[in-house]
Structure formats: C-alpha cells, structure tokens
C-alpha cells in the first residue's frame, strides 16, 4: 500500500490525526465515522481509549468477520503505545485488511515518532490538528465556524467573541453553535454583547500598555481581569517594567538616528519603536525613575514581601500611570 491516499478520501484504510488540539482531533475522528456510517449504517465503530490497545487486540479487531461488515478502529493517544503494540500496528499498516478503517490519533512531536513515520510512509491520509497559538488563527477559526453554520458575522463580532470567551476552541465552537441557533439575521457586535460580556483573558502586557499611556482606570480594570483569570503577578510586574524601561531607553537614545539603527541599538523591532514613541508623550525622566522604583517595590511585594500582592500591583499601576502624565500639566 504505497499509494498515497487522497486527503478527501474519508474512507482511506489509514487516517492519521496529528496534533494536540482536542476539538480538531475529535472532529477528524467524527468525520471518518460519519462517512463510514453513510456508506454502511451497520458499521462497527471501536473507539479505543489510551491504553486499551494490547498486543493482539488489533489483530483480533481487524480479522474479517463472517458478515463482512465495515469496521472503524480508532486508536487514541497513539504516541503512548507500548513497544510491543507498536510492532503490531506497524505490521497491520504494512498489510491492512479490507473493509477496515484505522484512525490513529497522535500528538505529533518526538514521542512515538516511529509509528508516525511508518504510517506516513504507508501513505496514510493525514489530518493536521495543531494547537492554534496565534490570535489570527483563532479569528480565522471563528469566522470559519460561522461560515460552516451558514451565518454571516462581522469581523468585530468575531473579535468580541474571542475577547469574551478566550482561546479554548471547544468553547468557541460551542458559542458559535449556540449563537447560530439562538439568533436570526447577521451577527454583529451588539448581538455578541447581548450574550457575552466581560473578558476571558487579559495579559500583563495589556495592563502595561494602558498604564504607560496614563489611562489609570482602564489599566486598573484590566489588572483586575488579569488577576481574576489567573495571570501570575510576577509576569505583570515584568510587563510593567519592560514597558517603562523601553520608554526610558528610547527617550534618551541618540536623536536623529535612523529608525533601523535605533531599533538595533535598543534591541526592539521597528514597529515597537514606533509604538513606544507614541507612548512616550507625557513622560519625564523623573517619571521613569519613580515608576521603575515603584515597580521594583511591587516585584518584591509579589514575591512574598507583602501580604497582598494585588494591592502592591494596583499601587504600582497607579504610580506608573500617574508618572505617565507627569509631563503633561506643566
């Protein structure tokens, strides 16, 4: 079986679902099962939990039955299979049985790579299910979900949904399904706001960006969110410090330098130099000094120096955003 299976052939004898995104893995499996059931309603589906596959089990499951029924065998967590079982699976891959569809769910990575390579070599149909680490990917995912549900949703609506749900794809998919079922017409920001409010995720860097531009109230609110969703306090002091530090260094860097040279000198990407330049307005040298000192005190406080890390952080945020306005009123 050296022939490569076409990606859209759901009933290929061997399907590999590779990645760590649970939702996508489940969908890949469900698609194969659905296709098999469509071809033959009596299909026998065996979904093997991690560890359920022992030496010999596979041979037992794939032996042609008397009634020649179609079978789907799903092996979960294939990267954790014991060496003996892997031998079994490899042997089967080399000589697959008719009427059996084998789905290997594999996390990718270095663990159990031998099996992965063997399956690829045998021409398995491969479905990539990587974790979506970037915001852009998740946005595309939400848009795709709405499209699949046959609904139109604005870009802003998708963003708002991401803000309030967070990055868990399963929850995002469920939310899209719910919205598609509950609402009529195009989905815009107002619709999202009616069903979802608040923020699921806030990072220290967002807090820092607000604080160094002097937006005290917003910065404090974002700080509360960040702490509520479990951001580590040390990460927040780190973000605040690096925000203020960049301002201090850019403000005193050589004037008249070319942007590229400046970026290299400061060790920041050019887009960041532009952003810091915007944030720099309103800052003074003394402001930078006061702010960094306050952040250092907060860093000590969150590392066990005080009883209430949240208070220490709030104080630092207030000091920073006040320092950010120190040069404006004069």
């Amino acid at each position: 079986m050296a022939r490569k299976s076409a990606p859209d052939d759901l009933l290929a004898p061997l399907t590999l679902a590779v990645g760590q995104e649970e939702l996508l893995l489940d969908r890949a499996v469900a698609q194969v099962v659905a296709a098999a059931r469509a071809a033959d309603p009596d299909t026998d589906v065996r979904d093997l939990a991690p560890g359920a596959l022992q030496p010999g089990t596979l041979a037992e499951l794939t032996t042609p039955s008397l009634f020649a029924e179609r079978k789907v065998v799903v092996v979960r967590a294939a990267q954790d299979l014991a060496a003996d079982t892997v031998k079994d699976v490899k042997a089967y891959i080399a000589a697959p049985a008719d009427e059996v569809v084998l789905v290997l769910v594999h996390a990718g990575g270095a663990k159990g790579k031998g099996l992965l390579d063997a399956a690829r070599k045998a021409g398995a149909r491969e479905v990539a299910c990587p974790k979506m680490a970037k915001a852009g990917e998740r946005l595309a995912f939400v848009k795709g979900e709405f499209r699949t549900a046959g609904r139109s949703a604005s870009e802003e609506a998708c963003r708002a949904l991401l803000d309030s749900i967070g990055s868990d794809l399963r929850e995002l998919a469920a939310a899209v399904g719910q919205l598609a079922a509950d609402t009529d017409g195009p989905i815009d920001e107002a619709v999202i706001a009616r069903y979802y409010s608040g923020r699921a995720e806030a990072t220290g860097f967002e807090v820092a960006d607000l604080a160094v531009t002097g937006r005290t109230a917003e910065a404090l609110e974002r700080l509360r969110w960040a702490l509520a969703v479990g951001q580590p306090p040390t990460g927040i002091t780190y973000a605040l410090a690096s925000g203020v530090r960049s301002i201090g260094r850019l403000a005193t860097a050589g004037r008249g330098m070319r942007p590229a040279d400046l970026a290299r000198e400061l060790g920041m990407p050019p887009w960041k130099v532009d952003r810091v330049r915007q944030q720099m307005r309103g800052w003074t040298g003394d402001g930078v000094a006061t702010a960094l000192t306050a952040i250092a005190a907060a860093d000590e406080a969150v590392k066990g120096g005080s009883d209430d890390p949240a208070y220490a952080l709030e104080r630092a945020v207030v000091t920073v955003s006040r320092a950010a306005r120190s040069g404006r009123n004069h």
Partner: protein
Amino acid sequence: MSVWDDLVGQERAVEQLTTAAVAARAVVAAGRGAPTGPGSGSAMTHAWLFTGPPGAGQATAARAFAAALQCTSPDLDLGGTPGCGFCDGCHTVLAGSHADVKTVRNDGLSIPVRDMRELVLRASSYPTGGRWSAILLDDAHRLTEQAANALLKGVEEPSPRTVWLLCAPSVQDVLPTIRSRCRLLVLRTPPTAAVADMLVRRDGVDPALADLAARASQGDLDRARRLAVDEQVRSRRADVLRIPLEVADVGGCLTAAQRLVDTAKQDAEQLAGTRDAKETDDLKAAYGASEGLGGRAPRGMAGAIKELEKRQKSRATRTRRETLGVALGELLGFYRDVLALQLGSTGELANEDQRPALQRVAAAGPPESTLRRMEAVLACRTALDRNVDPLLAVEAMTLALRAG
C-alpha cells in the same frame, strides 16, 4: 611553615586555636571525649563557629584548626605546638584527603536538609585515626531552617570525639539554638598592609599592584588575589566604578544597570558552560547510558538528571547574585570613600586609584545624598536576596543613585 600560614592578620585567632589544639591533645592523651558546655573550662570544645567579614578566611581558619587537631609531628612530644604543616596529619587535611576530616561545601543557593541528616549520621562515628573526627561546614548561613534543625541534633548531642567547625559571615546568620552551642571565633578584617604583604610574598605580585588590590578588596583575601592576578577582574572593577559618573541621566542609569546584569549573567553562563555539560555526561556515564541515538535511557536516569539540572540552576543563580554582590560591594566602597572625602576624614581610601572621580562626586553634592546613595545600594542587595528581578532591582538602584 605551619598550617596557619594562609591566615593573614589573625594573630589572636591563631593563638586561641593553638591553645585549643594543645588542650585537645591532652584530651586525647587522657582518653576522654571533648569537653562540652561553657562550664568545662577547657580551651577545647566540640563545636566552633568561625565568623568574620567576607573573605577574611573563615574556612581557611577552620581547616587549619582541623589540621592542628590531626597533627602527628614528633616535635609535639618535645613541647612543640600542633599544626606543623609537614606531618602526615597536617598535610592530608590541608590537601583535603584526611579520612577523619569531612568538608561540606554547597555551591547552590541553600543547603538541603537531606545533606545535614547524612552528615549528622556520619558525625556519630568514631574517628578512624583515633584522634578527632572533624566536620567542616562552609557557608553555614545557607542552611535551610529544616537543615539547621537537623544539624542541631548533631551539635547538641555530640559524639565524644567529633568536632564541628561551622563557618558563617556573622553570628546572626546562624540559628540561635546552634549559636548557643558553639564557641565563637571572630576573625577580624585583615589590615591592608598584611594583605598586600601576602600578595607580594605568596603570589609574587608587584608591590604597587598588591597595595592597590589590598585596598580595593577591603580585607577580602580571595578578592584581593583575583584583583592582583587577573586583568579581567580589574577591568570589571573599573567598569563598576564608572557607574557613579554615568548615572547623571535616566538613559545612563538604565544602560549601566543592563551592563551590570549582563556581566553577571555572562559569569554564570561561563561557569555553566565549563561545568554543566561535563557533569551531565558524567552522570550519564555513571548510569551506563549508551552513546548516540537509539539507546534506551537506563531506569532512574531521567530523575537523576532532573535533580542535577535543579542543582545547576541553583548554582547559576548563586553565581549571578555573587557577581552582582561584588559589584554592589564596590559601589558601596566608592561612596564610603566619597563620604570620607566630604567629611574630611583622614582614614585610608579603598579606591585611592580613583581619587579624581571620588573628588568629583564628593564636590557635586552634600554628604546626606551620599548616605542616601549608600542606602540605595544596600536596599538593592536586600532586594536581590528577596529574589526581585535582578535587572529591575539594579535599575531601581541606579535611578536612586541619580536622584542622590
């Protein structure tokens, strides 16, 4: 030559230890155990705490004393003092191979309780050579509280011929319960002349350079030697002493802080580069792991490697902190000199070679601001000990130096 040669400017301590070693000999001759408790009236006791300013030679003193206890010189019977430096006993202790002298040294951030439990067990055995079983614990201030309490068991119920030699920077660094069971031996800061003399005599350093190094080290022997023999260490020092002149503007403060922290990181990485990989390889070899790919990791090796990595990380942090600590000490010395100039003191300056810079800073502000700057340096040291992000702590310091 004698075992006390490496102690510089500590005549009183040497005298006290020699008396103790003589008394210890009498104890062995009488076949008794070490006298314990303050009421014993003997010059010898079972537990000693060596303290003194950094680099004054606590561990050196403790090792010399251990050697004197093991001294087998034939002169002893003729009325000589223990610690000849030539006999088998003295020589093997100084070389670190004597069977009855155990040295405990930890290059991580703290000494774990497990190490102490093993040590206390060992302390209960009788010395193989029939004299004294000495246990030298360097850096006793790094004991965790649990470890210190485990050690207490050994110190408060001593086995008759076991001598504990603990070293720490100051008495406050050791648990009061341990302190109260030890005889205290305080080393003083060695005088500059004595340190310079040692550098000339032993390391063959040029007298002018030796004088500079001795002053700059402020009594720290190790540091004095490194300053005298290592060009790189001297240029590091010059870098650090430039800081007071660089902190005029915020950019200078931030750059200076970054430079200090980067240097410390480099030091840690350099040390890690030379040691970590080799240690890991040795450990793998000890477990019999096969070379190359495809070899299966032997049982238990992954855990041992994780343990090793933890130790290596702790060591890197300590190296980083120590490099920063040395820099802070130099800054503190600088401002102390500035203060001395401002107040017209006639005492000797640690940074005589930097006199023009000292005078410039001294003329630029009142003594009050110099004191505030010294406070800032000390606050930075505290912050580093409390695990504040090093860059942030040093930045806060340089910015405070700017404010004055």
